[in-house]
């Protein structure tokens, strides 16, 4: 009797501790976002009060107006959307084709060519940046959307990832389609590609989040403020408003918002997409 009571008590203590640490962790994760939102509605003197006030005295959009006035947010959103869109389309299209070929077709040189894919995957992207920038500059394409997309025209990681998806489809599926009179392209396009939906969704999310957060390449290649992405554009605010944190918080919020909204809508797909790809 005594024994079960103490067992029950230790179980309760365990539960309580588990929730305590999880909630503590969640508060630490949420707080910076909350503080950003609260600060974005404060006046500058209000943000500098000591001791600080938690809630702003008023709900105001002045800081957002000022952020938009000092940074061409419409351009930044549009550039970011186009960059992400083209990078995703290229990654999905070319990687699906190559992933299918590497997984299902026999051709000479396959192993050597796949070796090139593996080499690219194992090298950090910074090792390519200077020559890539020189190519863009030589083409006269600096400060364009094309320049933003350029390093993402093909994705070695996407090929590797989708190859695995195609390998998990039994060979019989393709053979059946082939016997029904489909040629290789039709087999790929009509039968096999639709079967990789989950993996394509994961690659899409991974590519989008990575491109959206990338900072060094857009900074290097597009120096014209109107051609920057949300990330690189936001970084220019850092020197402009050294002490006006309410405006900086408003700008950060504007830069974060689109992806966070998408994330909250497609939580499961995002978590599984990013974690499931194994990352880079």
């Amino acid at each position, binding site marked *: 009797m005594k024994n079960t009571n103490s067992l029950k008590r230790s179980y309760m203590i365990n539960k309580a501790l*588990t929730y305590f640490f*999880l909630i503590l*962790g969640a508060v630490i*994760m*949420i707080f*910076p976002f909350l*503080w950003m939102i609260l600060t974005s509605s404060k006046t500058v003197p209000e*943000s500098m*009060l000591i*001791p*600080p006030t938690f809630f702003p005295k008023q709900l105001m959009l002045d800081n957002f107006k000022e952020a938009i006035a000092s940074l061409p947010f419409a351009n930044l959103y549009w550039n970011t959307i186009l960059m992400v869109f083209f990078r995703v389309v290229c990654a999905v299209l*070319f990687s699906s084709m*190559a992933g299918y*070929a*590497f997984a299902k*077709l*026999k*051709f000479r*040189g*396959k192993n050597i060519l796949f070796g*090139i894919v593996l080499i690219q995957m194992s*090298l950090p992207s*910074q*090792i*390519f*940046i*200077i020559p*890539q920038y020189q*190519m863009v*500059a*030589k083409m006269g394409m600096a400060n364009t959307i094309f320049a933003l997309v*350029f390093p993402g*025209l*093909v994705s*070695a990681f996407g*090929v590797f990832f989708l190859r695995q998806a195609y390998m998990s489809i039994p060979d019989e599926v393709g053979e059946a389609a082939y016997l029904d009179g489909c040629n*290789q392209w039709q087999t790929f396009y009509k039968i096999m590609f639709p079967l990789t939906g989950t993996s394509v969704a994961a690659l899409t999310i991974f590519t989008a*989040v990575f491109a*959206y*957060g990338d*900072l*060094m390449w857009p*900074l290097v290649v597009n120096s014209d403020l109107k051609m920057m992405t*949300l*990330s690189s554009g*936001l970084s220019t605010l*850092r020197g402009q408003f050294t002490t006006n*944190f309410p405006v900086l918080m408003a700008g*950060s*919020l504007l*830069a*974060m918002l689109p*992806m*966070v909204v998408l*994330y*909250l809508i497609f939580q499961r797909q*995002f*978590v599984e997409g*990013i*974690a499931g790809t194994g990352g880079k």
Partner: protein
Amino acid sequence: MNNKLSAAARREENWGWFMVAPTIIGLVVLNLWPFVQTLYASFCEHEGFGHYKFIGLQNYVDMFMNAEFWKATWNTIYFCILTVPVGIALALLIAMLLNANVRFKGGFRTIFFLPLVCAPAAVAMVWRWIFNGEYGILNQILGVKIQWITDPKTAVLAVAIVSVWSSIGYDAVLLLAGLQNIPKSLYEANSIDGAGKVQQFFTITLPMVSPTLFSVLIMRLMASMKIYDLIYMMADETNPALTDMQSLMYLFYRSSFVAGDRGYGSAIVIWTVGLILLVTLVQFQGQKKWVTYDI
């Protein structure tokens, strides 16, 4: 050779080549050739307009004689020491908490994962405000007056805190998947023996999750060695602690694109890649001692 292939096999081969062509051409032009160029450029002086003059090992000699370079190398290693063990330990703790039958598991997962979808530039901006020496909320809460980002003593630590905060949810989700693969029967058999929780952790949980732990470790190490964006955002050129928090990749960026010394920049990036390779190899050697693949 060609004649021996049947018509169908030849068609298949052509399709194969056709379908990998865009990717392979892209990789050769965008990655393989640039890699060779960077390697070559590290032995050259950049004379402007993409013209390079071969100068042998001069860039490497300059680099190894340069105190700022060694400081950046140390900062990068110090950053790894601060972020990798603590980050992975905390991520494992969160994963274990989530793995214990809790309510709102999905909700917690969503919250811990949130920083992953935020651009590092925006995340860093928010933390600059939290860390602010005069009015930052962190100093107010702790009741101290630390110049987190501009004091050479705390600058790397500040970036490390942001980095751990940003990546912990990702590592926890990966580790949670590893934990969920451990058969419940292992714990049940063990608890009959009356083994304590702590002992259970070391005899069952840790060995069973060690392969996942290893892949998270390698990934986190590689990412930490390449740290750039958070430091770029927190250390502007006016920051007095700039050289005290500058990582190798930030030094690479400043040398190549701010100072325009692309040969020297190439040497730095080659050095960094070599260092990453070395650290990874050491880890792959070390894993034999603690990673269990077959139970």
